[in-house]
């Protein structure tokens, strides 16, 4: 359902401002969305002033500095700090991206940091991704081989080889780190997220549909050929705009639609 305004318990209020210790060489304000499930209060925006000269360059470095030195209760996901794990996905300066890949100096004024949009918040910057993971599982993101293939002598107990050309078809698909920046930037997913699979999951669908070793291409296409699951994509292109890995989910979805028209 299209609901433009937030529910009453989700309205954001202003919170506390923390000043950096003197002397401050290059102060930067980070305005961060906070919500604690134990407080039974509405979410609030806390402002943290940090000294950039004593901090790493990325937004994630800023968050770590705050957590280490100012407010240890600040909660966010992070792991690899180099754009490989996809944990620190959040909305920074209005656009979904990975905090570890976003430079603080890219943002002119204060840096506003929210959790991924239109998601249930577990705590602070941690969104509940269980629905998205469920949707990912629904497209069966693993290699499927039909029994036929497995019983022929040629294929028995042997690895299924791929030509470089066949392997090339997976480029732009396998690199996805499942941070769900794209999915949560999609207005269509905001309004129809219960049914619509969203760009990240559809990109994974394309990854398995186009795998030469997979023997269920048709079945996979049939499974997503659904007015809600796939065709809620209206080529808004926000997904491609926000992907921190520079991938193009919208184009892959167009490829899926094309394959359904021509092959089913």
């Amino acid at each position, binding site marked *: 359902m299209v609901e*433009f305004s*937030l*529910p009453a*318990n*989700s309205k*954001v209020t202003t919170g506390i401002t923390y000043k950096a210790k003197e002397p401050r060489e290059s102060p930067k304000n980070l305005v961060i*969305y906070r*919500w604690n*499930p134990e407080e*039974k209060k*509405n*979410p609030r925006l806390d402002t943290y002033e940090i000294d950039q000269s004593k901090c790493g360059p990325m937004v994630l470095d800023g968050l770590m500095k705050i957590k280490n030195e100012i407010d240890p209760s600040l909660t966010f996901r992070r792991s690899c700090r180099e754009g490989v794990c996809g944990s620190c996905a959040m*909305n920074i*300066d*209005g*656009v*979904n991206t990975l905090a570890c890949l976003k430079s603080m100096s890219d943002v002119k004024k204060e840096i*506003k940091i*929210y*959790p*991924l*949009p*239109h*998601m*249930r*918040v*577990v705590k602070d910057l941690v*969104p*509940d991704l269980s629905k998205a993971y469920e949707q990912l599982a629904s497209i069966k993101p693993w290699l499927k081989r039909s029994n036929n293939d497995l019983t022929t002598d040629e294929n028995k107990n042997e690895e299924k080889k791929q030509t470089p050309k066949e392997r090339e078809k997976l480029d732009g698909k396998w690199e996805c780190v499942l941070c769900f920046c794209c999915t949560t*930037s999609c*207005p269509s997913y*905001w309004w129809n997220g219960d049914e619509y699979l969203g760009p990240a999951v559809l990109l994974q669908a394309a990854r398995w549909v186009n795998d030469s070793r997979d023997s269920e291409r048709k079945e996979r296409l049939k499974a997503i050929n659904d007015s809600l699951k796939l065709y809620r994509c*209206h*080529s*808004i*292109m*926000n997904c*491609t*705009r*926000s992907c921190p890995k520079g991938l*193009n989910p*919208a*184009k892959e979805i*167009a*490829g899926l*639609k*094309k394959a359904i028209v021509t092959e089913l």
Partner: protein
Amino acid sequence: MSNKFENRPLSPHLSIHKKVLTAVFSIFHRITGIGLSIGAILISIWFILISLGPSYFAYFQIISSSIFFKLILILWSFGIFYHLFNGIRKLYWSFGIGMDLRSVYGSGYVVIFLTFLSTITVWLFA
């Protein structure tokens, strides 16, 4: 899901997400589409008025001579051209053509340019 999680707030979306051009182009395509549908109804009313005879048509002429009506007509022609050009852009996308980010933005600017050009041309020379 147990009740424990039901008080979880919904993270802000429309209000905090940057108005990126990709989404702006898309919503304008919808708005112009809706506008054109309403305009189509008005045009059919116009045709009905013509067919009913000169006395009814006189009413229409009183309305149509107002500046307000002209303004709406200009907006409507703007809508037609935007919807047309952006529609062509979207047709290309259906074939997976021009979907890299640079082309998306480039073709978007071309659509805006053509829309203004066509609207101005139509109102200057027609």
